[in-house]
Structure formats: C-alpha cells, structure tokens
C-alpha cells in the first residue's frame, strides 16, 4: 500500500452500475477495483465503495484525490470533494494512454451510448477526436437490453453467454425501446426462441448505433468495445465483430495487412473500468489541490437528510389531499363485486361466449340469452394465444360444470390481436375488431356514455359518441406511452404484485412529477427519481398521476374534455388499478372546473372483460338474426394441440418483403389439409394457420393458391384505384417531349464553339441518376422532360429504387442527423444510385435538386414554398458523401444539388441554364424551350394523369353511392416505402384512394363544392383557403388544407391524414385539418408519426376499425338516399293533394290537419354501433 497522497480514486457512477478504481500514481498500478449494479441506489453504493476503499486501501480525507465521472457522478462529487470529469473525456483519456493504437471506442452504458473516433490527419499525423453521445433517448443502449431481458426472464449468466453468430435474425426496431418491445412481443408470440430474439435485439441495437451515433463517420480500427453490455455479453461482441468489418468492406476502408478484420474489434482488459481509469489519468495532469477527498460523511448526510429536502422541493402532494377524500373516492369507485351466476345441477346453460385475445392478457365471458354476464375469467397471457384460450375454456367450463350444470354454446365471438387465429381454430362465428367490441360493451351497460376511454395493455382507445352513435375514435399509434403495461411492468420491476398497485401508490404522501410523453423518457425519469431518493410507492403514484395526461394530452390531444360530453366510461384492464382511476377521475373533473360543471366518470363494471363482452354481444346479435354456430365443440377444444414452425421453409417468396412466417399446425378432428403442397408436410388431422405474413399473398404456400388470391386482389385494386400508387409511377415516367435541342452547328471555329459541339454530342450518352425522393414525387416530370427535350434519352434517366427496408438499411449508416424519415431516406437513395445503379452502368451525373418552391393553383396564398427540411436535404446528402473523401469524384460522378424555384418559371430557366450550360453546351433558347417542355409535361402529369383519373373515380363514386378516401399527405407519401402501403390496405377492402393532387379541379366540381362560400364572400375563389388557414406560405401545407376543405364538402369523400414523425409543417395544422374535416360531419382518420419502422399490428387494427366505420358510413348514405327518395315521392303526392284541396276550397286559407305520418323504418346501425335489436 502506497502513501495516501500517492493514491487517486476514479469513480464512475453510471445509470445502472458503479465502477471504481484506486490507482497508485507512482507505479500506475490498480490497487483496488470493483464493479457493481447499484439498483438505482447510486449514493448508497458510492458510500459503500468509499468505506471499503478506506478500509482496504487506506484512502484518506484531505490526502487522497478523487475524480468522478458517469451520469450520476455530477450529483455525488460535491459531497465527497471530488472533481467531476465528463464521461467521454474520461474514456478518451484512458484510451489515449492505455491503447494509443486505438482508432475508435464504442461504449454502451445503461442509458447512454458513446462513440469516439480518433481520426488521423494524414498531413500532420495529429489525431482529431470525433466524440458523440446519444441525446436524451435511451434507444440503442443497455437499457433496452435490460427491458427486453426482464420480459424474457433470462438469467443474467445465461444472457452473458447468449450468442449471435449462426442465429436467425428477425426484424426488431432498434430506434426505440418501446418499438423494440412491441416487435419482440409479436415475435415471441409467434414462437421465436429467446436466443434468436436476443440476437435480433443485439443486431437492432448495433445497427441503430452504427446508423445514428457514428454520425456517418467510419469507425477507425482498432475498435475498442467498452461498457457493461459489450464487456459481459458475448452476443453483443460477436455482433459488433460481424457488423463493423462489413462497413469497412463496403466503404473499402484501408485496413492493416494480414489481419483478420474481426480481430480489429476488441474488448480490452479492464474494459468496464476505462471511464474510472480515465478519471485517474485526468487527476494526474491536474493541479494537486483539485479533487481532494473530503470523506464520506457529507454523502451520508445527503442520503439521510439532504435528499429528502431536495425531493420536497421538486415533488408534489400524493394522489389525494385528505384521507376523507380518499375514502369517499374508494367508496364511490369500489369495484362492484361480480357474483357469478349459480346454476342448478342438471341445468343446460345456453350461453354466448366472447373471448378477447389481447396483447398482454386473455379474457373470456359467458353471456346469457338475455345478455347478462354469467361467468367470466381473466388471465395474463402466457405467450401463446391457443394455450391461453384452452385455459379460458377450462375455467369457464369448470365454473359451470362444477355446479353440475352443462354448458351449451350458442355462438362464439372473438376479438383482440389473436381474434383471427381463434376464429380459424375454434371456428368462431365472428371476429370483430377491438374498438368495436369495446364500444358495444360500453353502450350495452351505459347507453348514455359520451366518451369511452379504454386503456388496455398496449392500446389506448378513445371512442367519442353522440346520441349513442360513434362520432369519432382515437387510438394510440405505435407508441405505447400511457398504457397499462408500463404501469404493470414498473410495479413488477419494484417487486410487487400488480394487484397491490393502488394500495402501494395510495400510501405515498408525495410523488415526483413525471413529464408526460414517451415511455422511454419516463423510464429514464424513473431512474433519475430513484437516484433522488423517491421511494417505489411515490414513483408509482407519480406514474399513475401522469397516465391521464398521456391519454388525453399526448395520445388523443384533447385538452378540452368538457366539449366531449359529460359521461365518461373508463374500461380496460388498467381500471382495476384504483390509483390510475383516481388520477383519471381527478384529471377529468379538473377539466370541467372552469365550466362550473361536474362530469360523471364511471368505471365499467366489467372493465377488464369489456372486449370479450362486446364480442359475445355481437355473436348474440347474429344468433338472433338466425345465424347458427359453427363452433368445433367444447370437447374438441380440449383436444387442440399444435406445433409451430418458423424457419427458412416458412419464408414467403411471393413478394419483395420475404416475410418469415410462422406456421401453426393445429390438430383438429376432421381437419385434412395433408394434400396441400408444402415444404413442411401437413399431417392428417391438422389445420395449418399461417401468421406473421405482412400481406394476403403470404396466407398460402402454393403458388396457384397465391395466384388466385392475387387475382382477387388485382380485381379489387382495379375497381378501386390508388392514386398515390398511380402518382408514384407517373412522376417518374417519360412524357416523351419533343426534342428542342439546337441542331449541331455546321461549323465550329473557335475553341468555345468546338467545346460546345463536343458537349452537345455527349448528351446522347449522358446518364443522369435521380433520387426518387421528396418533392420529386410532385415535380419530377419537369426535370425528366427538361432533360429529354435536350436530347438525353429517356432510358438514360436512372431513378433510384422506391424506398424499401433494404434500401434504407444499406444506405442509412452514412447519415449524421435524425430528421423526418422522408428526408432521412435521401442518403440511402443516393447510396442506391451509387452502389447499385452506377455499378451496373456508370452514371455521369446525380441530379438531386434543392426545390425551394412549387407550382401552385392556389390563388391568394401568401407564398408557395417547399418545406425547408425537404429543400435542404440535398445539402446533408452531399455532406454525407463528401466528408470522408469525395465519393462522387472517386466515382467520376458530378453531384448536382441545383437550387431551383419551379414556381417562378423564368427564374427556374435561369437556374437550370446556369447549372447546365457548361455541362450540356446549352444555348439560352434551347434551355428555355426545354423548360417549357418540362412545364408542359408537368401539366400533363397534374391535369391529365392525376386529376383526369381523379375525376373518373369521383364520377363513379357519386354514381354508385360509394365512399372514396382522400389522403391528406405530402407528395412523398406516395412512396410505398414511406406510406408503409397503408393505402393499399384500403384499396383491398374496397375504397379507392385519391390524393390531394388528384382531386379534380374542373370548374363544375369546384364551383359545386365551394360556390356558396364564394357567393357568401367567405372566400374569393373556390381554391382560396384564407377562410381556414391564414399563414399560407407552405405549398404542401396549403394543399392539405384545401384538400381537407374539399373532402369536407364532398358527400362521397372521407379524409385520411398521413403525417411523418417530426413533420414540422404538419404539426401546426393538425387541429386545423382535423377540424376542417370534422366540423362538417365528415369522417376523419389519421396515421400520424409514420417513421422508418412499419408498425404492422397498429396499422391492422386501425385499418379494420376504419373499415368498419366506413361500412357503416356508407350504409348511412344509402339509407339516407333511399329515404330521401321515398320522402320526395310522398311529398309529391302531398303536393298534388294540397293543390287539389286548395283549388276546391279556394276561399279557405287555414291549413288542414296533417296527413297521417308515414311509417318509417328505424335506421339500423347507421354510422354507428347498434345498441340493441
């Protein structure tokens, strides 16, 4: 042991662990080291370490120096006299001294990830440090592994040995821990084993870090892997070793000769202590008066006293103000005890069964013929819906049969994410989408409900009613912020049973204030609050308290609850938690305070089983209509056994998605599918269910079956055109403009004349690559026709492929920023041109214009600007390919990000002339003629192709009383890779899709729709939007508003808004667009926050729900039309009658008694859910 002032302590206080070293300065020997999880008790663990260090190494107050780092280090330092060193600086100092040959460091921590690249300047040999850290998002860090691991319940030791090499990988979103969890959930339920799930997660995390954290830079060898997950988990290391060399190869990065690239990715000795060692290193270079250890006493004081004071300042009172208030609440919301019906021995119980296969739990009920709930059961999902269902049946049967009665099922209805599997296996009579089931169940018990708020495991559903009809509904998108599962997992994480949640949370006298929003951020908040000393009960109270904010403000964004009505029905499993209910009730009531009113907030008496009840009610309705059940029988349910297959043989090759499907072979009596062709033979007595397919084609295995399906789909698609798809093709086709190029001069004398001739001749061979991105979907024809008119053959205009997952993955790693997805795909598209198209046949130019404004038909708009993100994307694309050497130059390609203003034709001509005069040898005249040709092509594209077809669609809709969907989106939403093929789903269920640009603007139509407004002086022209939106300078935004107005006024159109995550121009008009559509009573649906990952499950439930409501909406239209015709006929009769009467009684002016009322059939289920038949 050296002298105490010769010792330096390095203490690294991370988000999940504390690491520390004691180093003897003279010898630079590590005398003491330890690494431990702190279980959110950072100060306590530090205190323990300090005491041990004092005892074991003799560190001394006033003598030894101490330097701390890590996300929790800053808070600890002042109490022990330590000097804080930022983590990245600490790590780089350690690396520079211990591993001078290191080129990059990748450190994954609990909640943060860091990459440091040491880039050598070839001229000076000096190393420049390029450090980067994740910002507040914990996506791509150890926290995601922890979260998933907690779900999969893999023991720590096993996790460390989990592999990567040779394991099958499945698509998992690495960007966000919540999305990753959603994907893992789905995969787990389709039978993917844990080792494959973890390997897929490793891959996702590493891809996320490579794509985002490297900021487009190449990791230099030798790469050191640091931090807990990299050090301890074999699979993580293997995954890096696999992926980093791939990047080197792709970018032809020079590597030291004779070395296996995998060996250039290493985990150094003491990898977990690098930050702590860096602290020591820092201390060695600092003034000896800095960081002198002051003992642990103040830290101990902080733990026992200081922290409490800090807490008191930051938090608020608990979930209630007084015991009296709490008691009153408990009394009012005490769950009504459900008493199952008793049966008589020998009784034959005739019942309707509803089963809800939810994401986290399964629920089932038996409904009597009078629609009363007789028995019910609920259980947390064990991961397989069939297994859960069998247990549900057993439980229900047991409740009936144990009393000596027998059960006769009159019908079965299923709902929830597993509804289709259950329908197939059980031969259930109906499978209905969750939203509908929940609404039916609520209205059955509470016919006066104005709002239904269903908070389930993963989903939040809000259904807004008017006179018992559904007026609007809102679902959370892929984000699960504010759901019940988050509360549940936090509770379980603290070691409590979820049933104890409310009691525990009510015990808290104060609570921390969470910011509402993203669940990942809340997760970070939890860690932070724990560090501040908040107790589990207080954190749980805080979480319950923030739930209503997430529901009403974040997910549904309805701050003004009082406008929705008075009666709120709360349902879904989360309402079992009275703490959550209390927060909800208080929140809802607070929103009524201003109005001097009080809402009636009711918790559904069967809140957990409302979906199952809804399904049972639906089957009961069908039964009453005469439908008889096809159910396989109770005994057959017991016999259900199944085998799942998921391997290369289950992969579908019928489309580019190449889905890895899961086959579930269910043994069912009478089933015989053994004759079907399959790579995995089907046994006799087995029914094969195919899941995990992303489209209908994947429902079968045989190519002929697929062709049949495709034929049906094609016919449906033909009947219901998708104008987004049409536009996506038409924007990039050749409009065969006349060639307007000057003839080759006969004589060329001067050097410049000769040069021009040479350039003109070259035009024929020039190959121009054009990325298929952003506003090229709107003005692409201008440029293609411009080039063609100048003599560039159409086949030499080479477009990048449409956006796909693969295209994105291949090119995204060069990106340095994280804008909206449509902008982010700019780099992958240019990458695709460079690495795919250029390799096939070389390109001369990549033309990626910066489009600053757009041609417009909207008069009186302030301006017609493009979105700045969209306009400037080509600059960040250029940066990505020129920062590490000029890749364009190396490939002999000219990258042109010409700045253009298509709204100003003369300026556009000048801009193109300036850019291309020396490339094509242009004359001003031919340039001008080519621009004219471009504008002509644009007009053809816009008016003939888009609006022409749009007009035809609209004519048919009106003629056939059908509904068409207007996509309120931006031009790039026509890209199938950006709209995630959502629009196609609507085509498949029988709705044609119109885009803003394809709405016909013929005078007869627009005057019909807007004429009244013009006459009233509200607007000056049918295409004037000033009545709805003032700040009309952004063209695509104004177009969206105009299309919303159009949709609101056309009886055959409904609106579907698409918006990409981070869209800066959509956010300010969310309310205006929605209110423009809905104020007129027109249905409005939306898919917002569309991002790089395709949330298939969420899309499915939304499409089904929207499909259901549209069906009802159309029924309503037809019904109205029929009734209107009947009424007109009746009125005609009446008119004749009146005229006759008046003629005969010319002297009498008093109107006679009204004629007898006509019998009018009560409308059924118009635009709504039925209540009762």
């Amino acid at each position, binding site marked *: 042991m050296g002298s105490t002032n010769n010792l330096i302590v390095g203490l690294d206080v991370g988000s999940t662990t504390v690491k520390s070293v004691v180093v003897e300065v003279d010898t630079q020997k590590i005398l003491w080291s330890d690494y431990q999880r702190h279980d959110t008790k950072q100060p306590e663990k530090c205190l323990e370490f300090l005491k041990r260090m004092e005892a074991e190494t003799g560190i001394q107050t006033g003598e030894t120096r101490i330097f701390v780092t890590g996300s929790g280090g800053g808070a600890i330092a002042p109490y022990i006299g330590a000097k804080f060193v*930022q983590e990245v600086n600490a790590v780089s100092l350690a690396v520079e001294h211990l591993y001078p040959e290191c080129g990059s460091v990748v450190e994954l921590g609990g909640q943060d990830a860091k990459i440091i690249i040491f880039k050598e300047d070839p001229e000076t040999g000096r190393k420049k440090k390029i450090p980067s850290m994740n*910002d507040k998002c914990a996506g791509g860090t150890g926290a995601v592994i922890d979260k998933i691991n907690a779900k999969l319940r893999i023991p720590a030791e096993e996790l460390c040995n989990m592999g990567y090499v040779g394991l099958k990988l499945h698509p998992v979103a690495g960007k966000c821990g919540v999305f990753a969890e959603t994907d893992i959930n789905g995969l787990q339920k389709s039978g993917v084993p844990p080792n494959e799930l973890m390997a897929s997660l490793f891959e996702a995390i590493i891809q996320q870090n490579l794509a985002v954290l490297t900021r487009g830079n190449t990791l230099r060898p030798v790469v050191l892997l640091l931090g807990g997950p990299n050090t301890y988990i074999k699979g993580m290391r293997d995954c890096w070793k696999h992926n980093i060399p791939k990047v080197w190869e792709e970018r032809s990065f020079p590597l030291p000769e004779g070395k296996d690239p995998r060996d250039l990715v290493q985990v150094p000795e003491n990898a977990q202590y690098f930050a702590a060692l860096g602290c020591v290193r820092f201390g060695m270079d600092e003034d000896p008066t800095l960081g002198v250890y002051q003992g642990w006493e103040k830290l101990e004081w902080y733990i026992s006293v200081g922290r409490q004071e800090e807490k008191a300042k930051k938090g608020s009172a608990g979930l209630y103000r007084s015991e009296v208030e709490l008691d009153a609440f408990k009394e009012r919301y005490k769950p009504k005890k459900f008493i199952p019906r008793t049966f008589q021995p020998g009784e034959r119980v005739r019942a309707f069964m509803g089963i809800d296969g939810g994401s986290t739990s399964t629920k089932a009920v038996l409904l009597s013929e009078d629609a009363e709930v007789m028995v019910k059961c609920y259980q947390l999902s064990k991961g397989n819906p069939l297994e859960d269902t069998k247990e549900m049946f057993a439980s229900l049967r047991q409740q009936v049969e144990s009393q000596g009665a027998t059960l006769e099922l009159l019908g079965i209805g299923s709902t929830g994410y597993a509804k289709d599997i259950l329908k197939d296996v059980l031969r259930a009579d109906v499978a209905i989408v969750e939203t509908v089931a929940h609404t039916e169940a609520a209205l059955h018990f509470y016919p006066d409900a104005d709002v239904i708020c269903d908070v389930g495991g993963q989903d939040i559903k809000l259904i807004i009613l008017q006179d018992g009809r559904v007026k609007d509904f809102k679902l959370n998108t892929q984000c699960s912020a504010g759901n019940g599962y988050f509360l549940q997992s936090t509770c379980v994480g603290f070691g409590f049973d979820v049933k104890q949640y409310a009691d525990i949370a009510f015990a808290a006298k104060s609570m921390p204030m969470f910011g509402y929003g993203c669940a990942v951020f809340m997760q970070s908040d939890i860690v932070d609050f724990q560090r501040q000393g908040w107790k589990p009960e207080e954190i749980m109270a805080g979480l319950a308290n923030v739930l209503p904010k997430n529901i009403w403000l974040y997910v549904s964004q309805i701050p003004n609850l009082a406008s929705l009505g008075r009666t709120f029905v709360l349902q879904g499993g989360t309402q079992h938690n009275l703490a959550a209910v209390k927060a909800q009730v208080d929140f809802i009531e607070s929103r009524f305070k201003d109005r001097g009113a009080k809402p009636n907030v009711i918790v559904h008496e069967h809140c957990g089983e409302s979906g199952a009840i809804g399904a049972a009610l639906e089957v009961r309705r069908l039964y009453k209509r005469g439908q008889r059940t096809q159910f396989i029988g109770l005994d057959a349910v017991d016999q259900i056994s199944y085998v799942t297959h998921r391997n290369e043989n289950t992969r579908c090759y019928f489309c580019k998605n190449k889905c890895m499907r899961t086959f579930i072979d269910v043994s069912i009596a009478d089933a015989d599918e053994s004759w079907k062709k399959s790579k995995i033979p089907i046994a006799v007595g087995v029914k094969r269910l195919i899941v995990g397919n992303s489209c209908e084609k994947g429902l079968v295995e045989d190519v002929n079956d697929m062709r049949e399906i495709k034929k049906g789909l094609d016919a449906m698609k033909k009947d219901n055109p998708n104008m987004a798809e049409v536009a996506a093709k038409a924007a990039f086709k050749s409009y065969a403009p006349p060639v307007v190029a000057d003839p080759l001069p006969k004589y060329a004398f001067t050097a410049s004349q000769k040069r021009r001739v040479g350039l003109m001749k070259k035009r024929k061979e020039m190959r121009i690559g054009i990325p298929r991105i952003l506003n090229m979907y709107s003005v692409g024809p201008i440029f293609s026709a411009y080039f063609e008119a100048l003599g560039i053959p159409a086949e030499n205009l080479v477009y990048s492929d449409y956006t796909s997952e693969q295209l994105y993955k291949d090119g995204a790693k060069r990106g340095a920023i994280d*804008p909206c997805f449509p902008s982010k795909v700019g780099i992958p598209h240019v990458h695709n041109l460079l690495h795919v198209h250029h390799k096939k046949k070389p390109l001369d130019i990549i033309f990626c214009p910066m489009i600053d404004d757009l041609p417009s038909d909207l008069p009186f708009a302030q301006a017609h600007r493009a979105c700045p993100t969209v306009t400037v994307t080509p600059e960040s694309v250029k940066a990505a390919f020129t920062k590490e050497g000029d890749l364009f130059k190396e490939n002999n390609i000219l990258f042109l990000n010409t700045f253009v203003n298509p709204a100003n*034709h003369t300026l556009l001509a000048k801009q193109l002339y300036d850019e291309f005069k020396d490339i094509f040898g242009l004359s001003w005249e031919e340039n001008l003629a080519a621009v004219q040709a471009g504008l002509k092509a644009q007009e053809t594209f816009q008016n003939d192709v888009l609006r022409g077809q749009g007009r035809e669609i609209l004519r048919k809709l009106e003629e056939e009383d059908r509904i068409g969907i207007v996509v309120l989106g931006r031009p790039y939403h026509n890209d199938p890779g950006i709209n995630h093929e959502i629009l196609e789903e609507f085509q498949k269920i029988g709705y044609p899709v119109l885009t803003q640009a394809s709405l016909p603007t013929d005078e007869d139509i627009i005057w019909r729709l807007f004429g009244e407004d013009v006459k009233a002086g509200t607007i000056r022209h049918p295409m004037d939007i000033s009545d709805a939106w003032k*700040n009309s300078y952004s063209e695509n935004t104004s177009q969206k508003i105009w299309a919303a107005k159009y949709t609101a006024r056309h009886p055959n159109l409904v609106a579907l808004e698409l918006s990409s995550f981070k869209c800066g121009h959509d*956010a300010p008009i969310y309310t205006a667009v929605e209110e423009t559509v809905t104020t007129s009573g027109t249905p409005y649906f939306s898919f917002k926050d569309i991002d790089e990952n395709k949330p298939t499950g969420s899309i499915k439930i939304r499409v089904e729900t929207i499909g259901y409501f549209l069906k009802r909406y159309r029924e309503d239209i037809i019904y109205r039309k029929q009734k209107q015709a009947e009424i007109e006929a009746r009125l005609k009769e009446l008119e004749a009658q009146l005229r006759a009467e008046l003629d005969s009684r010319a002297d009498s002016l008093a109107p006679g008694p009204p004629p007898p009322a006509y019998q009018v059939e009560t409308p059924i289920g118009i635009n709504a859910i039925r209540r009762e038949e």
Partner: protein
Amino acid sequence: MSTAPMNRIHGTPRHLVQIASKEELIQQRLAEERLRLEREARIERGEVNHFHKPIERPFTRSQRDITTILFGGLTWKHEKLVQAALASLGYRCAPLPVPNKRAFQLGKEYGNNGQCNPTYFTVGNLVQFCQSLEEQGLSKQEIIDRYVFITAGACGPCRFGMYEAEYRLALRNSGFDGFRVLLFQQEGGLNQAEMEAGLEMNLDFFLGILNAMNIGDIINDVAYQIRPFEINPGETDRVLDECMDRLHEAMRRRRPWRLDGQLGAWLKKGGLQGTAEYLGKFLNQLYSDELMSALREVRARFDSIAVDRTRVKPLVKITGEFWAQTTEGDGNFNMFRFLEKEGAQVIVEPIGTWICYLMHQAKQEARDKRGLDLLANGVSKWNIPKVLGSHVNTQKKLALLTVAEKIFKREYNRIIDALGGLAHHLADQYELQRLGHPYYNTRASGGEGHLEVAKNIYYSNKDLCHMVLSLKPFGCMPSTQSDGAQSAVVAHYKDMIFLPIETSGEGDVNAHSRVQMALGEAKMRAKKEMKAVLEETGMTLEEVQGFAAEHPEMQRPMYKYGHRKGVIGVAANFVLHAAERMKAARRARVYVQ
C-alpha cells in the same frame, strides 16, 4: 296622450290575418312535412357547418390607454429596453417572464402535438401569464379585453411563420378564446389594416425598437465578456442591473423628435413638414447625443469592475436557432450560466446579425432576379429603354438596401464605441456567405439559413473561439439539415470543436453532459495555448499576475490590448500583451539605470 315614442310596427300586426298566396301555403306545408318525415326517418340534417379560422379582434387606437401590449422572446435586457422605447411613445406594455419548464408543459398541453420547442415554450408562456392574471383576480374577459400580444411573423419557409396560429389555438384551448395576437411581419412590418392603428408603425416606433435591440445586444455582449473574469463574484450582475435601470430610464424619458416652432409652421405652409420631420428624425437618430451620454455613464460603471484576465477560459461561441441561442432560461437548459459555471467564457449571438442577414438576403434576391422581368415578358435586349429601366429599378433597390445596411452598422458601432469598444463587431455578411455557401446554399432560407454553418467556420477560422456550441430546438427543420451539412464542415476544418445540442423541455442532465464533453476538449486547447504563450514569452503566470496587480488599469474591463493571430483565449492574449509591457518596462529600467 302618452309622450312615449310610438313603436314602429314591424311585420304584420297581430290582429290582422296575413293572406298568403296559394303557392306560399303549399310550399310551407311541404317544408313542414319534409321536416317531419326526415325527423321520423332520422335523417334530418341541420345546416352543415364548415370550419373557419378564428375571428381576429382588432386592437384599435381608442383602446390604447386601457390595453397592455405583451411581448417576449428575447433576453430580459432587450425586453427591458423595448419596453422603455414603447413607453416613450405612450404605450402600456410589459414583457412576459422568461419562459420556464411549466410554460413548456402548458404549451404542449394546449398546442398541437409535435411542435418545435420555441413554440411550446413561448406559447405556453403566454398561456401561463394569462393564467397568472386570472389567479390575481382578473376575469377571463378582462384579460382578453385589456391585453394584446405582439409577436413576430414570417412568410416561411420554416414553421415559425405559423406560430401565430399556434398562439391562438393554445389560447382557445386554455379558455382565452378571442385573446388578441398581433403579428409583426419581419419583412413587411406591422399590418396596419390588422392593427387599426392600435399600435402605430412609424419611424419613431422603428427607431425605438432599433435602439433597444442594438443597445441590448451590445450590453449583453459586454456583460458576458466581463463576468468570467470578475474578481468579486456577482459584481458584474449587480452593475448590469444598475446600468439597465439607467438605460431604461433614459430611453423611457426620451421623446420622439418633432418639428415644431416657427420653422415647422413655415414648412407646414409649404406642405413639406412631413418630409422634413422624417429627415429630422433620421438626423436626430444619427447625431443626437441623448442616448450616448447615458451609455458613456454605463461604460464608466462597468469599467469600475475589477477583473483578472489571467484566468484561462475556453471561449465558446454560441450559434444555432434564433430563439434557442437567445433565451436565457429553461428553453436552452440555462446554457450560458452553465457554461460560465463550468469555467467557460461565452460569446453570445447578437440580434443585429439577424437584421443584417435579412437585409443581405434581400439584396441577394434582388440580384438573382435582375432582368428576370425582361426575360419573362420576352423583352428584346435591344429594347434599350426597358432594359435600362429594369436595371435602374434593381440598382435603386440595391442602393436603398446598402444605405440601410450602412446606417444600421454605423449605429451599432457607435454604441460599441460608447460602451468602451469591448463588444464584438457584427460579422460581415459577404464573408459569411462566402464561407457558408459551399456547404449550405445561401439561397435556402428558413431558420438561420446558411448562418449556422458560416458562423461556425467564421469564428473558428478567425481564432475567435475555442469551440462553437450550436443550440437548436428539438425538431427545428432548417437547423437539423444544417447539422447534416456541418458534418462535412467539421471533417474539412481540422481543428474545429463544434457541438450541436438539441434543446427541449427535458433532458438537461444529458445535454449538460454533452456540453461538458466538448468543453473538456476546448479547455485542454485553451490550456495548451496558454502553456505555449508562457513558454514563448518566458514568463510565469505569477509574474504576469504580479505585474497586472501593480498596474490597476490592467484590471479594468475596458483596458485595451491586442489580439494576436492564432491566439484565441483572453488570458493568452493578455499574457502576450503583458509580457510586452513587462519587457518594455524592464528595458526602460535598464535604460534608466
């Protein structure tokens, strides 16, 4: 006889029977029956309503005395001076408090989802202020009637121009429907029709705002240059407070220049009073000493603060999005104070750069569009009168803008001089254009346009800072793309330390940590620089400190010394200067001996 006026009888008197035509009767009956049948069939459809943007209530001249104009979005120093300038013109006005996290939460709650954070902060701040008035006992209607809010607007392309709608939405959602939001167009001035002269846009108004902005910029800069070196902690802030009070008073008492007396009467007769008054106001602005004398007082007060310039501090230049780089609160994680606490010296961004940028861009646009009218109308180049006319028009516009630019800079520099010449001069827009254009097209507007990139290169290349910290709000569209371009800038400029930080209402700890990461580098650079300077001069720090202690003028903030090319830090440059003086003193001593 009753003296009450006789009511004019409208319509048909009750006792008389209206005889309707047969057709009218039939139509009435049919309409009644239609309604009944439709109701019975449950298909009656009331009038279809359509959405309309909120109705905007005007702020009129007659309401001026009972209405308080609210504004915000700058630093408290700028706002205090703007308040004084408007008060001098007879307006009641008040700046909003610096937006805090609660304001952010309120903005999120009442606004649209997915906004960038200046919207959340500023919109929520207004709602919070209105709520605070309500808590003080004012009714909603009183608040709506007695207050208006004025905010800047723009015609794109970034979403900033749409904020105005967001204010209205949040006010509606929080129960203040009808609260007046007035728009001040950056490029077009106030919309008079909208204002109905409640707030008069005239030369006095503009000059008042201009003075407030410029003085605010410069005094801000001066304080940030002194504070890190103050010997007595807290002294700079104390002095700043006093000085701001003094300047506020000076501006508030100032009265607009008027042409009166005999000359005025005489000019009035000739119909020239308007022009002459306009000219007089300009000349008064350019040559009057009214404000300058107050500024000189302030300078003396600042100069009384004792400073130690030998402290080695990394110089951090702030750039980024307009609001995030300006606000001094939760909106940018209190970044300036944090940096100072971490041992840095901050160079804040003046609003003047933005004003110059707007003028520069207008000139650029005029040049780009030169002759386009001729091309668009197919005018032959031989049509000399038209060609000439078009070019003269462009030149006129350019000349006017150039004069405006020159006057603005002259005024700015006059204030710098009055405040001791310590503040930074405005960066040259042509140079910024030259530096930024290769990475970010200077024609692309929105946000700070090319400025973020250009300022990064400018300040790093000219040895003006050790590190550039770019503050931008989460979701800022132009700034995000600018960061994409910066990735190439950083790769091409070898010694640049550049850190972009996305600010949002949450995540202070992480943001501060990332700043510490880059600051660590900058500190090492500053230390290295100091070490090199000491080696070069052969002095020790203690020797320099000792010399400075013996020469009190060297401890004054306004004390001048040079800036050597290649040397960035204040301390390093000070040591070089002190060393020269020390050597000179030694030589002098030797000579005397």
